[in-house]
């Protein structure tokens, strides 16, 4: 037994040494910078461009490495709090960025952003709530995305239907949708073609906002998911799904995507072959369309207008890990995101909106030479990003991830007919408000309580002014949606002060 043990020990030791020797050399003659991002080929092009750019503009040699193995929120957080995360970390939603910020693992870059030329106001206004908290900037967008409805023009021709206009009323949209469903699906057979595919929660958010409501109130101190607007928006989604067949149900989606239930990427090939006439997606959908060889006419429309035209904007964000030993180099990367080199890649590759809005007006963005079928789409994205896109409402009193989970749960309960719309939204509202109450009552959160109390006073003033029919000073409003909505309806005025 002893011999067996010794032999096993020796074999394992030798194998350990061999494994260590086979690993990529962690040493480099240049400073090594790790970028935790998603595994896309275009990231490598962006990384190579950065190495050239920093050499050309700053005379620095960098060994820039992509880490796509750890591109998962839980891994990022756990590695972050363990002190071993990459120097630069991507986050692909405001929920994730806010979580990382709440943990405290991402660097405040406000001053260096001003010094190096990538302050928040250089990018889209609607993107700012995603990465600026209490006036401090935590990173810079590598790209911003807005949700619009892609139109497969060939499908409308096939069924002899008029193309949707860029902006349509709810009634027009529903009428066209019902006609499409009727013509595209033989009577008596299982419905296989739908008018619209998209994340139900996103569609509901846009409808709610169009009707005049939002997830939170004006000061982000309370959830308002049980508002009349919210109820009405869910009634519309429910009707589209279960009565009109405009949108696929969960069962339909499970059929389309048994391997990845609910995974929107399944929708791309289905859209390309005409099973969905419209697809809710950002501009980056073209990065999936192009490899599929989709060369039919493509255009884009806004979410149906129920009173206030709007769509949501999110960001793919690059942040700097607080414990990075290469902070200066990491800041150069954020600076690079505003550069001509980087923005040109974004425009050419068909990724989301470039960090520098000026590049959304270049010919490379609007008229990609190899893809004339897309030319009708990019300009609409560029205009929508500036005119109707609005940032998400992030309450400082509750984690956005928690809000998202509660809201998604309510959505699922409604769509599976588990609860009535009123009941599900009422429960969700109570739960979010209970989370807020719990957060501000926490003894470690005294600063939050003070902030909450100030916001409550402002909310009282807003409610009083609205009740009297007087306009509200913009500085009192913290929810980006209400800032835009009240200006649109004339219920607010810009008093020039900061909110």
């Amino acid at each position: 037994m002893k011999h067996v043990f010794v032999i096993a020990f020796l074999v394992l030791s030798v194998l350990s040494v061999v494994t260590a020797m086979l690993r990529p050399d962690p040493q480099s003659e240049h400073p090594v910078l790790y970028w935790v991002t998603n595994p896309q080929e275009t990231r490598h092009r962006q990384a190579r461009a950065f190495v050239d750019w920093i050499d050309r503009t700053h005379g620095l040699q960098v060994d820039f490495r992509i880490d796509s193995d750890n591109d998962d929120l839980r891994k990022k957080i756990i590695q972050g709090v363990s002190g071993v995360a990459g120097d630069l970390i991507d986050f692909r939603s405001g929920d994730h960025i806010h979580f990382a910020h709440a943990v405290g693992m991402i660097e405040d870059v406000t001053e260096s952003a001003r010094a190096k030329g990538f302050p928040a106001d250089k990018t889209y206004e609607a993107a700012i709530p995603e990465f600026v908290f209490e006036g401090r900037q935590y990173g810079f967008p590598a790209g911003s995305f807005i949700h619009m409805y892609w139109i497969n023009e060939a499908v409308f021709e096939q069924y002899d239907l008029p193309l949707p206009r860029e902006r349509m009323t709810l009634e027009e949209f529903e009428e066209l949708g019902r006609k499409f469903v009727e013509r595209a699906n033989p009577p008596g057979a299982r419905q296989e073609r739908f008018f619209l595919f998209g994340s139900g929660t996103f569609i509901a958010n846009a409808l709610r906002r169009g009707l005049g409501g939002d997830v939170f109130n004006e000061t982000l101190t309370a959830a308002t998911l049980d508002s009349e607007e919210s109820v009405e928006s869910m009634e519309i989604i429910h009707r589209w799904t279960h009565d009109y067949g405009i949108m696929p149900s969960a069962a339909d989606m499970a059929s389309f995507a048994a391997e990845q239930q609910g995974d929107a990427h399944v929708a791309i090939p289905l859209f390309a072959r005409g099973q969905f006439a419209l697809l809710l997606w950002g501009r980056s959908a073209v990065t999936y369309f192009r490899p599929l060889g989709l060369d039919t006419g493509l255009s884009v429309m806004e979410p149906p207008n129920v009173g206030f035209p709007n769509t949501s904007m999110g960001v793919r964000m690059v942040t700097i890990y607080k414990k990075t030993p290469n902070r200066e180099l990491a800041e150069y990367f954020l600076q690079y995101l505003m550069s001509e080199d980087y923005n040109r890649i974004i425009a050419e590759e068909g990724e989301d909106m470039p960090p520098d809005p000026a590049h959304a007006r270049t010919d490379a963005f609007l008229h990609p030479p190899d893809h004339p079928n897309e030319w009708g789409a990019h300009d609409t994205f560029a205009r929508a990003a500036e005119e109707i896109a609005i940032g998400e409402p992030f309450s400082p009193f509750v984690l956005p991830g928690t809000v998202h989970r509660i809201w998604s749960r309510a959505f699922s309960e409604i769509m599976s007919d588990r609860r009535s719309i009123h009941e599900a939204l009422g429960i969700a509202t109570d739960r979010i408000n209970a989370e807020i109450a719990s957060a501000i009552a926490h003894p470690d959160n005294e600063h939050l309580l003070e902030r909450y109390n100030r916001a409550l006073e402002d909310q009282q003033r807003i409610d009083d002014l609205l009740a009297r029919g007087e306009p509200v000073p913009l500085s009192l409003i913290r929810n980006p949606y209400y800032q835009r909505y009240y200006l649109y309806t004339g219920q607010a005025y810009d008093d020039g002060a900061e909110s």
Partner: protein
Amino acid sequence: MSVSASKKRRALISGLAFLTPNIICVGLFTIFPVFFSIGMAFTNWDLTQHNMFKDVPLRFVGFDNFVELFRNLYFWQYLGNTLFLMIGIPFAMAGSLGAALLLNQNARSILRRGGLLLLATVGLTGACLLLVTLGMAASATVILVVSVAVAVLMTGTVGGSMVYRTLFYMPHFTAGVATFLLWKKMYDPLTGPINQALNPVLSGLEPMVLAAPDRTFSWLAIALVLVIGWLAMSWIGKMRGECADGDLGPAAFVLCVLLLLAPLLFLGFRAMPRYLWFPLSVGAVLITLFHAGRFLWSERMRARGPWEGAGGALLLTGGLLTLSLILFGLSLVSHHLPAMAAEGLDPPRWLVAYHWAKPALMIMAFWGAIGSNNMLLYLAALSNVPQDLMEAADIDGAGAIQKFWYVTWPQLAPTTFFILTMSVIIGLQGGFEMARAMTEGGPAGATTTLSYYIYSEGFETGRLGYASAVAWIMFIMVFSITIVNWKFGSRYVND
């Protein structure tokens, strides 16, 4: 003497040297985290507040996490989900035992007789031909099924039991996620093979139901309820007889009666019309009281301990309860069938429908359990059943069922007890992988189990203290049930 002591010491040192790495790892990665998590459960540890980037001190919050937990409605829903999924345990055990009994036969000798093989092949091929004729299944599927069936039978004939044992055990060594994805495809509500097979059946059933005379299915529903009542009363009567014989203690009797009747009466109250529920309930209670009264007057009752025979009685009561619940479900389906048929009978939407998601997971778990380690344990136990007992039973003229019930089943008691204990523990802790891969805990939390809840609270919201509290509540449940199992199960085994 000193040489011997020296040898012992060297053996001890050598043994410890071998064990030390393992002891260190177990201590570091198992025992320490377990005790550490007890402490965590009583703190407000939140990843967003307490980490290397912040100097917010960790606070002791006493039982706050537990109080919050018990106030949280979703915790109760997820606990309910976990317990609901555990209803499948008796079926899984029965499936494992059934598979083990089949695999314990000498397949080669049976199959060489030819009759069974011929019968099975003819039956299967006939069924497949019928399906093809009626256009009820894609011919490719039929060919596949026939090919696999013939291949299985042929290889079984050549290779004997070992081939079947390997095939049955296959689910256990197939990667979990791959299996889950396969089942997800099978459960596809519109194009999956399960619903493809159910569709024509339901289409055929629909006109039959509608053509049936008025109230036929209501009477069938009532008949099923009466069958449940008859089964329950028969079992209570049988237990009373065992009490009279001194084989069952009074406390065990009362517990079994409560375990059997309380859920049935509650469900009946929820689902049945009052005019039906009331007389049935009163009847059940009166009959139960009658039996209780009879054995309370019995002289022999005093001669036995209160928990005598509890293990076996509880196990069988649990099995009967499960059967009763299924019959009750069938009764409800029968009652509502005409109305459902009028609207058109559709197959279940399985994973995407709130009320079907859990049964869908249970069916899959049942399939996995048949060919699991439990089957191997039963196989091993079956090989240990003394042949002389079987021969004695043969001499006494016992049939196959009698031999199983009076010889094999008691001999399997220790294994059954072990499997039950482990299944309950695994059941309480389980469900995470399935839910994560197939439903993400949905729809509307229908498949979120306690283990999934721990994961989401710990790693999605960062509330480590709260997640630890959930974990410890789960541990307390596992521990309590295991203690009960040991207390009653050991008696059952020794009986």
